[in-house]
């Protein structure tokens, strides 16, 4: 089986006597779209926080591209090739869409250090051209000059995706990209993720079952901080344990 890009071993974390995550083992192969589903409060976002470095585990470890990144800060993991989007849209509302993505490009280690004090950024054409490409990839090419705060909710989700892509990640952590989007906006988002999946590995946390079953190569189910099963979409759909703990009897 392809060498695992991301491996989480025995990850545990409790918040004041509440076991948010308990001995979670999880692995993600390069090129795969691996979905993580589970009822509200199962610990999905907490899990992503631990993978992205926003939170530190009580025990267990996180390995990325063969390296133990457990103790690395978030910005170091991003530099190592791991990018994330947020459950609640988190963009620079006062900046134009182009500036938002330009910041992401500027932050990349291969795009030169940002400790530059003399040359105005406006004169760095290459930076803005690259940012424009990423906007095109997410279908926001014509919205470059619009202030992010005035974009629609769906467009802001797409912008956040563009910013994550602009860091040229190997692994993309998507935290409920479809949250709060209307039917045709989520359809466009699914197409987008399908297109992205061709050249980046994706860990997808999502409630929208149609999107999950359409996009995911593999699915893991998290309930009360514990991973109860991992497998192909079909296997998970028929697994009795999942059915009882998560989907109830009607599925």
């Amino acid at each position, binding site marked *: 089986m392809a060498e695992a890009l991301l491996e989480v071993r025995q990850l545990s974390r409790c918040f004041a006597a509440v076991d948010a995550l308990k001995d979670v083992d999880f692995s993600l192969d390069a090129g795969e779209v691996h979905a993580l589903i589970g009822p509200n409060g199962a610990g999905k976002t907490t899990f992503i926080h631990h993978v992205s470095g926003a939170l530190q585990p009580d025990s267990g470890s996180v390995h990325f591209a063969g390296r133990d990144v457990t103790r690395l800060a978030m*910005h170091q993991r991003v*530099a190592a090739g791991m990018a994330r989007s947020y459950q609640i849209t*988190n963009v*620079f509302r006062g900046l134009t869409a182009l500036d938002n993505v330009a910041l992401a490009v*500027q*932050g990349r280690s291969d795009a030169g250090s940002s*400790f530059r004090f003399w040359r105005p950024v406006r004169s760095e054409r290459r930076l803005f051209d690259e940012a424009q490409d990423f906007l095109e990839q997410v279908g926001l090419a014509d919205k470059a000059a619009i202030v992010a705060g005035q974009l629609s909710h769906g467009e802001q989700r797409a912008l956040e995706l563009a910013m994550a892509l602009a860091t040229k990640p190997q692994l993309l952590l998507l935290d409920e990209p479809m949250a709060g989007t209307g039917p045709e906006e989520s359809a466009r988002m699914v197409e987008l993720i399908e297109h992205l999946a061709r050249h980046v590995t994706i860990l997808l946390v999502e409630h929208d079952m149609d999107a999950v079953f359409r996009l995911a190569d593999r699915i893991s189910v998290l309930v009360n901080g514990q991973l109860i099963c991992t497998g192909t979409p079909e296997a998970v759909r028929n697994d009795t344990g999942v059915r009882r703990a998560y989907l109830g009897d009607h599925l």
Partner: protein
Amino acid sequence: MAFYRPTRWQRSLTIVLLTLLLGLPMLLNSLEQGFYIGFATRVLIFSLAATSLNLVLGFGGMVSLGHAAFFGAGAYIAAICQQAGLSEALLALPLAMLGAGLLALLIGAISLRTRGVYFIMITLAFAQMVYYLFISARAWGGDDGLPLSERMRFAGFSLVDDAALYYLALGALAVVMLLLGRLTEARFGRSIQAIRENETRMEALGYPVFTYRLVCFALGGAVAGLAGALLANLTGLASPALLQWTQSGTLLVMVIIGGVGYLYGGVVGAVVLLLLEEVLLGYFAHWHIVLGLLLLAIVLFAPKGVAALFGRPRG
């Protein structure tokens, strides 16, 4: 928030002002008012100090209530250099900047681990610690501060004449404003402004947020050290009063009056405050009451400050 962009006519206004200021000493001497050259130098120096705080507070988003520690440290380092026989400003000023910058690096490294109200109070407490350090060393003059026996020389030219020190201060302010103007529009400037707006998002884009803030804090400290060294030459005394937290409060007031996050916020704030003080002191001994009421009015009714009229943020 948007990235700070100076308005079109701001550049031409600066050039006009600069030429006016170049002629000021001659004008003052012709009017036989030599005293006001020293006053003008004081305004230039406080503009420099307030601008250094504006870099930390306005662009870096860090509410530091201990900035006077670096301002005073610069003054003391200049006085100590002079006491040790080094009275060449070309060496002493960079030394003061280096010393104050390192002090800022040290205090920043600890303080920047905290956020919000804790950060405000810790910078306040550390500045008070620096105050006690300087006044308890008898070699540095204890409570009375450290006098400079005479003013330094700059590249051989004696600064004893007020106009000479005035031009040195004007030159220093002009250079710093030029560099700050470039910095805010360069990559570093955009990064710290973005960090000020949304720290977690920048961390998620791979920016080592702590390091950026620390560099910004240290740069602000270094420029404040330069202003302190110049002030020590003007007054001939590195006085402990410079290190007191009420001095940090005054610098903060200047930046807020002038306009937080505007390139000329520090300069305008210093000019307005010091001119107001000079004019009002003549007529109203308890002018601090007027200043206090003015500040309250600004907080309650005009939070954006005076300089908002100059560089409206673009977009």
